[in-house]
């Protein structure tokens, strides 16, 4: 294919956009390991700022990890069963429930945080604990788990599988844990990566809900940008990037649950007799 002038024009434009997004990240990383950013790289490189960040803010890193893991557990326990019910029921009530559960996405975090503060701010112990932040994170991330699992379930023919299992005598819970859950694993994985990444970076809600004793990583970042020298803020940003880059890479790999996975043979056999497994294998194509 010959390259036209339009090609080079668009190529140059795209490179410019890339530079716009990436150059400040590189500058920030450099600033985090430079002795004096104002004098530039010639002032020498150091890990001093990174250690300083660790001394000052390591608590925020632990708290963010803790909240994102607990938040993930909550969204799985609450969201996956709800997604199954919504995939199964197509009626008006089900659509209203779906609308209701995804509403936190359409309302700015600031408004949700304000509402939580007005309603539960008076419960001192709750207000002072990190559980208060957790509630906000669960509201905000649950729609992503729900959507992700729902996408997989609506492209998988889990009804046929369930009917097969039921005709062989599997009861509701056996079918739910033996057929449905294993079949939406790819959706749970994609949703989980999304939930953890969002929870780690959540600021809008968290800034309103935090207390001096419950600071998360982004809250600490805002704090360091406002009150510390540029190098410390940069080093802190560097720490944040190191924490989310693996998550982002995993999201690129597993983030789009395109095709439902076939039920693994032995799992089917666990619930049913060996002879039924052939009939239960999912069609591999289909979905988006």
């Amino acid at each position, binding site marked *: 294919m010959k390259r036209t002038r339009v090609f080079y024009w668009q190529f140059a434009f*795209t490179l410019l956009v890339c530079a716009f997004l990436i150059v400040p990240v590189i500058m920030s990383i450099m600033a985090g390991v430079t002795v004096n950013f104002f004098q530039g790289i010639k002032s020498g490189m150091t890990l001093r700022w990174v250690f300083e960040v660790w001394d000052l803010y390591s608590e925020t890193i632990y708290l963010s990890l803790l909240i994102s893991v607990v938040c993930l557990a909550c969204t799985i326990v609450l969201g996956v069963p709800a997604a*199954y019910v919504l995939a199964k029921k197509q009626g008006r009530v089900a659509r209203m429930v779906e609308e209701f559960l995804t509403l936190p996405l359409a*309302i700015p*975090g600031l408004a*949700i945080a304000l509402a939580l503060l007005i309603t539960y701010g008076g419960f001192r112990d709750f207000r002072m604990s990190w559980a208060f932040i957790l509630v906000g994170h669960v509201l905000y991330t649950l729609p992503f788990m729900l959507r992700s699992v729902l996408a997989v379930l609506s492209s998988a023919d889990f009804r046929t599988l369930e009917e097969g299992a039921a005709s062989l005598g599997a009861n509701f819970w056996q079918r*739910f844990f033996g057929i449905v859950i294993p079949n939406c694993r790819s959706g749970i994985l994609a949703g989980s990566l999304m939930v953890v990444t969002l929870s780690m970076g959540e600021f809008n809600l968290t800034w309103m809900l935090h207390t001096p004793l419950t600071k998360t990583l982004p809250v600490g970042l805002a704090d360091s940008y406002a009150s510390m020298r540029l190098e410390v803020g940069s080093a802190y940003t560097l720490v944040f990037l190191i924490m989310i880059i693996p998550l982002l890479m995993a999201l690129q790999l597993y983030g789009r649950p395109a095709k439902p996975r076939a039920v693994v043979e032995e799992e089917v056999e666990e619930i049913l007799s060996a002879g039924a497994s052939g009939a239960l294998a999912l069609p591999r194509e289909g979905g988006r």
Partner: protein
Amino acid sequence: MERREYPFLAVLVLPVLVVFSAFFLLPMGRLVAVAGTGPEGVGAYIAILTTPRYFESLVATIVLSTLVTLATLAISAISGLFLERNRFAGRGILVSMLTFPLAFPGVVVGFMVIMLAGRQGLIGDITKFLTGDKLVFAYSMAGLFMGYVYFSIPRVILTVMAAAEKLDPALEEAARSLGASQWLVVRDIILPGLKPALIASGAICFATAMGAFGTAFTLATNIDVLPMTIYTEFTLRANIAMAAALSIILGLITWVALNAARSLAGSTVAAAA
């Protein structure tokens, strides 16, 4: 078997409904109630329109979000189409770079704007070298615009690329063989094909920009966008009723934008990816 399952299905969906009722529905109801308890009562909503400070911040936020949306859609359509249509060495790296800031919180985006356009920023250095004057605009509306475009590009570009993949190349070939110019193909074939994706991602972009708080918070506390006004009302002025009324208006605007886009684009619009 369908009907007998109802109790089981209810058990599965009940926990999330209880949690959402207690921590979302009830608080939102309280927010609406509190908005009517100020000195003006329900008049707080009218005060938004009649008090210059609130009204100006509302208008400024809407204008800013609209401009951000238009700029982001234009940039993402050009680059997204290019990356979807052409295969060349290094394409994957470009795509990763363009989607990398997807998970940056608003505060980090604000810091990136400071890196580019702040007092010690790159743009300042370049303009000082070229013209002798240091251009610093990070701490103003222009800086905020830059930050919002920065965090919107990755989201929109992914949607545009996914939609461009589904366009039928035969239509374009047919148009070209009939003698249509490049520009006509873009206007009559490509843009209409991308329209649903552009509307959907544009609405998300608009809603996110309306409610974004972290970037403005990092750049300066005196940029009067609605989320900053709400924050100031709540924390500094302790005018909780006004803060509640403002955030309800803000929530309504984003909700209406997303729903309008959904009925226009005809598919599910998910906010704030």
